[in-house]
């Protein structure tokens, strides 16, 4: 007992206002967070729990003090009989508590809070010591292969410079739910399972610090020399963790991968055949350069950005969709620098038909939606939570949110006409609109002709995220664009570089790609710095960065038994990450291999799915055709959110049924020009051509034998070819990009 008292007294001396009084703000409040009391599922809930409502994650100590001392007739804290206080009796389980036991009676939390109550449950006096920042030790650690137990030391640094250890008071939040936090013992401990690569956020009040946990796979090694910076950086990290990366993929595998990643399609069989036998040591680099020069590269990126910018028919109308998509495609064909792209979108104005980027604001029709979308798409930051309360996982306060939103409050529309088909549907706009910037505040329409009332409370002055002062310029979107794209902006370059990495590698260094925050660090921090720096130095040239990544060994890595079963989604880049083909690429791959026509209404024959500006959303007024249904089943998003997460590709039964018994796949097989041709070819050659076209490899001898046997079996040869083609196009080797 004596051992424990000394640290407690030391705490009280430094943290409390007086000589030995316990501080509510600096000691009791953190304990309410540590115990989970003020978390979202418990008393921090919008409606509170069990009649007790605390501020979410302790964001309002003043309010919580009132609630705890004045609520329920003062029974929550009882200075004369501290153990009878509801706060203690419930938390210790002495009184029935749905939240179970949070503070054991012989634990440090119980004792400290009891002491505070016994001292009269006082609030902190004005000007009491405030915590400025937090430090955690170690900041970074490598655990042995079996995992380990960590007892980090957390230190609070006060505004006057004094430091006090607060390990017993801090909340530890691991990014990996497999890591357990134990509050027993002399210090909170993290129980880290084997293989966890995680970040742990230490919190005390509003101060945060990050502890990076790395797990090694074995003793650290010497990194193999690498000339490509990406390989050098990744190699050093993997070596320090004793992780042996998987080997590189063979030529056919590489060809298929790079065609899908840079052009969204499969290489023609003849090209594959030539590539496989080409002896040129530069052939892979040449292929990358060839693909970067194809219009398909622009189509791929136009599609991705059309998803992010909500280019859909109901709000933009079909003409607007074509205009916006066309503009994006041209921008990517001309290799418009990404900062210029961002600038043109954010400062867009004018007619949505003749100034296509204005559709950016046509899709985002109120300041909050604009602010959230801009933050997500350009800065990689999710601020939506801060709309209602201080962001629980990040540093954005509601004030930050309102200040950022204010940048967009002046944007307004002249709806020249709206020939919507459904009178009741106010989401539908059909006709030209002009996006303009209002000078002066909005005027509420007054039916009685009187002057508009001033707004109820003054708007928060417009300020960029992380900005120190309000924006002075009256053209706020312009000021925003300047800030976003200036060198040294902490968000833009990293967010865009991360996006390009993610498109090629299947997982961002920061994942999700629009969730940059302290507690969600990059899996390879130095690599992210390098890529952002590369992008900036190359003046935001998308192709330059894509080329840089595609020429690395890391990009060409495969997988092997050692890496396959483990959770590969740890961003370590030790092996490739399999992912399903996106809907558009899958449909194009089927139609391409089979040489079957796809007809998109309003587009010329031979248009690929990748080139289509958009498909109409589900509506009861018109029946979706089977191509639209196919694409939707395989995850083509409706473009209602500014998030790539809207494209869902989790394998579903509906997808499999579509392949097995769906109408469209069967139609493509029936109408296949290639199969018509192969029906007149020798079976061995037919098998080879199909394998090359679909899987970019030669069949093994055994495969040839078995497939030929199948083709030469009873029944119609053309139908047998269909069945073989179906199997190739439905095999997992085909359906996945790996």
């Amino acid at each position, binding site marked *: 007992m004596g051992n424990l008292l000394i640290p407690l007294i030391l705490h009280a001396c430094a943290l409390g206002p007086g000589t030995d009084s316990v501080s509510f703000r600096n000691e009791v409040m953190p304990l309410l967070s540590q115990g989970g009391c003020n978390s979202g599922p418990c008393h921090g809930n919008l409606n509170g729990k069990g009649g007790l409502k605390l501020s979410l994650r302790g964001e309002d100590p003043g309010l919580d003090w009132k609630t705890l001392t004045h609520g329920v007739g003062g029974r929550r804290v009882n200075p004369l009989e501290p153990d009878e206080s509801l706060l203690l009796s419930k938390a210790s389980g002495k009184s029935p508590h749905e939240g179970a036991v949070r503070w054991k009676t012989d634990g440090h939390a119980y004792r400290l809070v009891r002491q505070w109550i016994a001292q009269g449950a006082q609030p902190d006096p004005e000007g009491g010591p405030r915590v400025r920042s937090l430090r955690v030790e170690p900041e970074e650690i490598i655990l042995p292969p079996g995992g380990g137990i960590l007892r980090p030391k957390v230190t609070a640094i006060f505004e006057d410079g004094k430091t006090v250890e607060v390990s017993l008071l801090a909340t530890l939040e691991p990014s990996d739910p497999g890591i357990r*936090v134990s509050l027993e013992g002399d210090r909170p401990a993290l129980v880290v399972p084997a293989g966890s690569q995680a970040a742990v956020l230490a919190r005390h009040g509003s101060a945060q610090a990050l502890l990076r946990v790395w797990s090694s796979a074995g003793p650290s090694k010497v990194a193999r020399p690498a000339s490509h910076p990406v390989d050098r950086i990744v190699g050093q990290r993997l070596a320090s963790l004793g992780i042996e990366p998987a080997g590189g993929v063979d030529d056919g595998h590489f060809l298929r991968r790079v065609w899908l990643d840079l052009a969204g399609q499969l290489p023609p069989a003849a090209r594959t055949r030539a590539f496989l036998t080409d002896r040129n040591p530069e052939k892979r680099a040449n292929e990358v350069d060839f693909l970067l020069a194809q219009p398909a590269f622009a189509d791929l990126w136009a599609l991705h950005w059309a998803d992010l910018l909500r280019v859909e028919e109901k709000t933009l109308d079909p003409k607007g969709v074509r205009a916006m998509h066309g503009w994006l495609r041209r921008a990517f064909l001309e290799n418009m620098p990404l900062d210029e792209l961002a600038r043109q979108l954010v400062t867009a104005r004018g007619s949505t038909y003749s100034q296509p980027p204005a559709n950016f604001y046509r899709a985002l029709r109120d300041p909050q939606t604009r602010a959230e979308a801009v933050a997500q798409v350009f800065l990689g930051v999710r601020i939506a939570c801060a709309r209602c309360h201080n962001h629980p996982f990040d540093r954005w306060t509601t004030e930050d949110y309102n200040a950022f939103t204010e940048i967009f409050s002046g944007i307004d529309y002249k709806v020249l006409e709206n020939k919507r088909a459904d009178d009741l549907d106010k989401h539908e706009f059909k006709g030209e609109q002009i996006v303009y910037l209002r000078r002066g505040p909005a005027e509420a329409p007054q039916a009685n002709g009187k002057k508009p009332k001033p707004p109820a409370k003054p708007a928060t002055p417009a300020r960029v995220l992380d900005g120190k002062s309000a924006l002075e310029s009256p053209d706020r979107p312009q000021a925003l664009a300047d800030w976003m794209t200036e060198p040294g902006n902490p968000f833009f370059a990293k967010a865009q570089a991360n996006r390009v990495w993610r498109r090629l590698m299947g997982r961002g260094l920061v994942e999700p790609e629009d969730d940059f925050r302290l507690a969600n660090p990059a899996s390879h921090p130095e690599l992210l710095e390098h890529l952002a720096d590369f992008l900036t130095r190359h003046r935001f040239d998308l192709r330059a960065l894509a080329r840089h990544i595609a020429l690395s060994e890391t990009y060409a890595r495969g997988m092997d038994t050692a890496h396959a079963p483990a959770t590969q989604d740890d961003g370590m880049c030790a092996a490739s990450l399999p992912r399903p083909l996106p809907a558009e690429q899958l449909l194009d791959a089927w139609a391409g291999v089979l040489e079957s026509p796809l007809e998109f209404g309003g587009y010329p024959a031979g248009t690929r799915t990748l080139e289509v500006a958009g498909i109409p959303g589900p509506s009861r007024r018109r029946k979706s055709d089977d191509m639209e249904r196919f694409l939707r089943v395989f995850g083509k998003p409706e473009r209602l959110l500014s998030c790539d997460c809207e494209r869902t590709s989790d394998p579903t039964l509906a997808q499999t049924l579509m392949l097995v018994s769906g109408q469209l796949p069967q139609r493509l097989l029936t109408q296949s020009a290639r199969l018509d041709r192969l029906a007149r070819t020798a079976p061995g050659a037919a098998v080879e051509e199909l394998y090359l076209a679909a899987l970019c490899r030669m069949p093994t001898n055994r495969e040839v034998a078995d497939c030929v046997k199948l083709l030469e079996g009873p029944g119609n040869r053309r139908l047998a070819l269909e069945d073989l083609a179906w199997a190739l196009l439905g095999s997992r080797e085909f359906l996945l990009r790996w």
Partner: protein
Amino acid sequence: MFPLPVATPLDRRSVLKVGFGGLAALAGGTSRGGAVKGRAKTVIFLHQWGGPSHHDTIDPKPDAPDNIRGELGVLQTRVPGALVSDLLPNTSKIIDKVCQIRSLHHTMANHNSAGYYSLTGVAPATDDQRLRDSRDLFPAYGAIADRFAPTPAGIPGFVAFPHTIADGSITPGQHASFLGKRHDPLFVGQDPNQAGFKLPELALPASITPERLARRGEARKIIERQLGDLEQTALARGLGEQYDRAHALLASPRVREAFDLSREPDAIRDRYGRTTYGQSCLLARRLAEAGCRWIQVYLHPSIGGAKGGWDTHGFRGEKMYPILKNHLLPLMDQTLPTLLLDLEERGLLENTLVVWVGEFGRSPKINDLAGRDHWPKCYPALLAGAGVKKGHIHGRSDKIGAYPASDACKPEDISATLFHLLGINPATEIRDPLDRPLALSPGKVIDGVLA
């Protein structure tokens, strides 16, 4: 390069010493409050789009003034105090099998906002008729049932038919949203009353015979011999499982036959009525027999009109009482009692929970167009079957049916009750796309209806 660890290697003894309390227990989608034993194996949810008036159906007020009582008379039932409209004679005979709730209320006055609420048990942030379906909205009841009380392979958990409902825009709450597409309903958009009604996904294209299907499977096996390490990954395994499930579904006669209404004797088909909704109720019974978990039947794609849903304002010269007399009430009177009696005769009612509810009710006062307008402040629901009281009234409306007089409850209380009866703890947490922990139902189980 980095400092060697200061941590203790993880061994069994240290793990036991350290213990496992703390925040970790709160993270993730864990169930809280203990396990719940379910009484219902199936829920048949009959969604009454447009908003039925209780004054003209099951909670009439014969003693109220004319402009509230309306034109219809009343019938007694076997349940004391329970009257029904005189155009529902068959319904009056089964009121003793049903548990009525007359005190539902909320504040959403628009079809899409209230509709979303009625399909998910979660109120939208605002009463927005423009509420647009997107992945950040709450999942449909059936998707939750499919996720937390799944059916065996080969039997779809969540089935919905025969319409998608909309009022301008498609009403949110009909899909799995952020729970994931795998929990989307098996949706059948065809009319069960038409000849040749079948489920397209479960029917192979005519040219694919079972022999060809088998040959395709064989060919895929040949090709996938080369999968190697890819096969070990979670993604590849998941895809493999989906193939197995698809084949099981195609091979299993059970579900396919359930959809084959031609197997049902004409007499039974006539009893349900040869209407889209009538045959849909029959299909619901067949799917209950096949073992589906959540069967959602939509009355009509539109909220109102001469042959549509319950939205009888009297607009556009479409007067309320003719529509009630000629369409809505006969339809209700033919379908609901038939379904309940049919389930009971087959011994299915003990394990099947039938729910009849709309998105709101209709105003006590008849308006200038001789119709009734939206009224979410007090409206009814009917429950029958597994785990609910028979012949019971929970929660009364006041003298004129304007506000709840006792035991007021909200749509989330209904959802909590339905989950509870399925054996799903309504406090179970799921995470939305913003990673917020949300309970499956924010409401409370209505103990008063439980048997």
